[in-house]
């Protein structure tokens, strides 16, 4: 498998299937693991980093859960490919900024990706479409088990898994759910909801994680606390909160349909019309309009496109994806034209 092959398939998390997929885009579980008595990546010498990389790549290649996919050394690929992996949520921003002695191993369906020498020696990540954290955890834990047969991870009975940053110590688990909440944004309730979430020890971030704004009305909600609760309880807790948020979004959608039906329909159809006719389209506008079209599909207003096709457009219209599709570097202005072109073709073709 090569990086270019990924372009031909839909990432697992964009499939638009799974529980509550009208509101929940995807679920993700990440586990942080480190080798015992080996300097953490940021503190290691180049030689140590190299040894850790080779050692862990070997261990990973021996598990059948990931061995059939793709292995990428981050310093062997160009900037567009790095950005491309980031856009597909297969690597973190940190992983592409400092690419030396780092690699990522990706399962053939893009359900599993494992970063080597990120902040921790291993960052195991599992993604699923829809609201499906339990399945993510089951897969991640199974991979973790199979890796632990081959390498010894830093662990203390008292503090659990030992990580580079104390904010991950214990379970090393970060569970997160990406929600599409246009109605809560439109009815201006989102601030209140996010405030409540933060009070409950959870955090909310944008489409591309820390520091990104909530583009396209997407919000990633995840646990902050990793020590003192079992993994199942952390996930259960997060699920309860997410269920509440889903309920609020459903109510807000109903209210909008009842009280502001014309305004809502107008917004959705105008967005749909613009996407199908525009010839120049920047990223930000694309996200905003696609969000409205997705809402239209989810509430049954737009019937000639399916959710998966809309989801795919969120990613295919990102800068690196456009450049990979075209097979060459594009300036920002060129991308805006290609983007509009791609959207028109995709929406008309369906």
């Amino acid at each position, binding site marked *: 498998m090569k990086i270019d092959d990924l372009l031909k398939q839909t990432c697992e998390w964009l499939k638009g299937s799974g529980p509550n997929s009208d509101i929940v885009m995807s679920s993700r579980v990440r586990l942080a693991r480190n080798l015992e008595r080996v300097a953490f990546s940021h503190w290691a010498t180049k030689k140590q980093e190299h040894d850790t990389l080779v050692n862990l790549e070997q261990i990973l290649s021996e598990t059948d859960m990931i061995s059939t996919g793709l292995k990428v050394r981050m310093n062997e690929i160009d900037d567009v490919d790095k950005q491309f992996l980031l856009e597909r949520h297969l690597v973190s921003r940190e992983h592409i900024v400092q690419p030396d002695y780092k690699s990522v191993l990706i399962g053939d369906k893009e359900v599993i990706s494992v970063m080597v020498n990120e902040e921790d020696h291993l960052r195991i990540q599992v993604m699923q479409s829809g609201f499906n954290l339990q399945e993510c955890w089951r897969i991640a834990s199974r991979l973790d088990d199979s890796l632990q047969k081959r390498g010894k991870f*830093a662990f203390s*009975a008292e503090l659990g898994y030992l990580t580079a*940053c104390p*904010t991950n110590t214990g379970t090393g688990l970060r569970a997160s759910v990406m929600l599409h909440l246009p109605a809560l944004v439109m009815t201006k309730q989102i601030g209140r909801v996010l405030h409540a979430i933060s009070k409950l020890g959870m955090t909310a971030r944008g489409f591309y994680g820390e520091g990104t704004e909530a583009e396209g009305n997407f919000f990633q909600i995840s646990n902050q606390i990793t*020590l003192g609760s079992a993994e199942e309880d952390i996930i259960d807790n997060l699920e309860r909160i997410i269920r509440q948020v889903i309920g609020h979004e459903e109510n807000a959608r109903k209210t909008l349909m009842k009280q502001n039906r014309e305004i809502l329909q107008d917004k959705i159809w105008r967005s749909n019309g613009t996407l199908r006719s525009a010839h120049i389209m920047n990223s930000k506008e694309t996200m905003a309009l696609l969000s409205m079209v997705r809402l239209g599909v989810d509430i049954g207003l737009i019937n000639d496109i399916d959710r998966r096709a809309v989801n795919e457009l969120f990613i295919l219209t990102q800068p690196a994806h456009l450049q990979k599709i075209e097979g060459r570097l594009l300036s920002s202005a060129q991308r805006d034209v290609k983007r509009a072109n791609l959207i028109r073709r995709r929406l008309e073709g369906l």
Partner: protein
Amino acid sequence: MLCDECGKNKATVHLTEIINEQITKLNLCEACAKEKGTDVEQHFGISDLLTALSDVETPAPGAAAGSAAIKNKCSFCGLTYEDFKKIGRLGCSECYVTFKASLAPLLKRIHGSNQHLGKVPNSAVMKGQKVMSNFHEQLEAAKSELEKAIKGEEFEEAATLRDKIKFLEKKIKETK
């Protein structure tokens, strides 16, 4: 879009800063962002937050009476506690042993707990004893803490402890 700082390169980094409730948006090229970035790190870096948390807990000199003198440098990787405060990351798994006295209260502040209750590696289960005795010890400690909490009418604390006891009992059963 061109960079707001140099006006020459393409802006690829978009920053939103909130200063005195005024929102400023900055569009920067990578080079200018890097320069600016150091400012941003200083405002929001996790290491600063950790420092703020751990400063409170740094024991005063001579305060750790009875226990061995607190070591300031990890003998395995060479990281000092000062380094940790600066970068917000530990150097290796041994640092958790070296800086235990300072880390335990810090972890409690971050997570509200300094006792792991989750998954245990296969190898630890196989070796069994250490983890087992640890669970038993924890269970006894939790039970006596629960009694104290109930007497002191600290019901929130008591509820947490009850969960912990339930969990530990389950774990002990599983490990048997």
